[in-house]
């Protein structure tokens, strides 16, 4: 790979009629790179992302136990997962957790982001601290909370007046609560950042005009800030939905899908099927279903919101 890049193909610009001339006679034509410049990265990406994506579709019609060669089995994997109660349940759990993520994190991060956008000094200092959870890997965050919420040595064991028997991982409702809370703890700062950038980009004139009209702080928030954040709300919601549908580490480390299969969401079930049950065909089918679902939901959000007709998709990225 190293050699490919240092020498871009000499045929880089075969179609250009007017050539650059050392004496400067055809200077109006600026030499442009040909598509050869894009080839090494594209080949690399195709090999390690596009090929596997196609392979996941193919594998979902095959049976493979991790050894030997995969065999074609038609719709078998699909009918099996469609009849699997754990799978059906996992879809509902995934949707529930995704919805909880959106419902909890959206208002929180809008409020925090708009607040952090103010240029007061204390706000700058506090937002620097808010930001820290984002620096930790999902693994570290999950391990940290698993330790803090440990049924025997964690916080709940010391605060039984609040947490009952202290075992938050023992019941479905509290286990789901823990997953939603930990995701919110980890990802709210990211969405806060998005809203902070977007809120700073709102023209101050709008607020000055509203002030003259006598609009108070809350009216300004609902009539200026929120509508102006529309693009960012959609960007951030798509991120939340895709992130929610593919949540994996949090479940693996915090609940192992338990108690029983009460928090076995689809991405975790795929991992279990493939890498614990050695049923790679079914795993591939679940994976494909996840990609399709994430894409469809994102497209619906984009269509419903009219986002595709707006100009900037990087709004809010400061």
């Amino acid at each position, binding site marked *: 790979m*190293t050699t490919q*890049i240092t020498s871009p193909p000499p045929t*880089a*610009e075969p179609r250009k009629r007017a050539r*650059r*001339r*050392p004496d400067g006679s055809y*200077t109006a034509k*600026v*030499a*442009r*790179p*040909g*598509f050869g*410049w*894009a080839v*090494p*990265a*594209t080949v*690399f*990406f195709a*090999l*390690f*992302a596009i090929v*596997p*994506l196609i*392979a996941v579709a*193919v*594998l979902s019609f095959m049976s493979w136990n991790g050894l030997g060669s*995969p065999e074609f089995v038609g719709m078998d994997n699909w009918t099996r997962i469609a009849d699997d109660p754990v799978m059906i349940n996992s879809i509902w759990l995934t949707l529930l957790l995704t919805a909880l993520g959106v419902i909890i994190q959206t208002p929180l991060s809008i*409020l925090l982001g708009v*607040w952090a956008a103010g240029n007061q000094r204390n*706000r700058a200092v506090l937002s620097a*601290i*808010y930001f820290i959870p984002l*620096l*930790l*890997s999902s*693994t*570290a965050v999950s*391990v*940290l909370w698993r*330790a*803090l919420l440990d049924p025997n*040595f*964690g*916080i709940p*064991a010391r605060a039984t007046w609040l947490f009952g028997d202290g075992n938050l991982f023992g019941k479905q409702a509290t286990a789901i609560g823990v997953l939603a809370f930990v995701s919110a*703890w980890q*990802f709210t700062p*990211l969405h806060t950042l998005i809203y902070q950038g977007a809120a700073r980009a709102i023209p101050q004139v709008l*607020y000055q005009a509203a002030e003259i009209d006598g609009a108070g*702080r809350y009216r300004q928030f609902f009539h200026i800030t929120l509508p102006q954040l529309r693009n960012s709300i959609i960007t951030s919601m798509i991120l939340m939905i895709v992130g929610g549908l593919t949540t*994996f580490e949090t479940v*693996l480390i915090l609940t192992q899908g338990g108690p029983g299969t009460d928090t076995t969401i689809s*991405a975790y079930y795929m991992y279990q099927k*493939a*890498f614990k049950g050695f049923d790679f065909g079914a795993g591939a089918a679940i*994976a494909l279903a*996840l990609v399709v679902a994430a894409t469809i939901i994102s497209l619906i959000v984009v269509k419903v919101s009219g986002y595709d007709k707006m100009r900037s998709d990087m709004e809010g990225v400061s």
Partner: protein
Amino acid sequence: MRRRPNYLAGAGSLLWLFLVGLPLYVMLAATLRSRGDYAEGGPVSIPDSFTLDNYTGAFDSGFGRYFLNTLVVTVCVVGLVLLLVPPLAYAIVRSRSRATSLIFRLFLLGLAIPAQAVIVPMFYLISEAGLYDNLLGVILPTAAFCFPMSALILSGAMRDISPELFEAMAMDGATPRRMFFQLVVPLSRGGLSTIVVFSALQAWNGFLFPLVLTQSDSTKVITLGLYNFQTEHGIDIPGLLGAVVLSMVPVLLVYLFARRALVQGLMGVGGK
């Protein structure tokens, strides 16, 4: 604008500070106290012992090795991204060929592919290629999954270079290659540092590919080390948290010295 302070928002922000700060405080405090002290007093109590055993203990259980492995993965991933993405972004921004715009579409589409979706075939392909349980097998897919976001970030930065500069260089008879090295690369340093931080974070914090594509201790990366530590010695909470703190030290250092690039890199992480 002068206004009276917003007390309600202030109170809310302090509540969030508490929610973010308490776990971080408990984590730091726990790593500096003995295991007995922690078990006895509970997580939020005031420590009455001081020890660095939790950190040395992490190194004794192999974290030095995992650190090194993670560093190798990170450096190689960043290297691959720096080697392959700038020419790609240059072509995306400057080339007029139809193939290039198709390629750009392909990468935009690639933004939507989650790593979870491809781990099953990835395991198959990497095993077939003989790279299972080999750091190279982790490096290659991790780098590939950094490409779409990096290409988007970098082509954005390159688009800001004014066309007059290209024309001026063309006057001197510059080839696309010379423009790339003398104009585009120097002027997109901001974008380059963002993609470095972005891909380094992806590699440093990556978990899924190592989980599925490696198994032995000699190829273990730090996130996997944390996971194993947790499943094997879950009761030794101060020791476990010591390892967590160690795993985030390099990222914190970057935070101190390259805050802006880090923030932008993180926004990229969210885009995954």
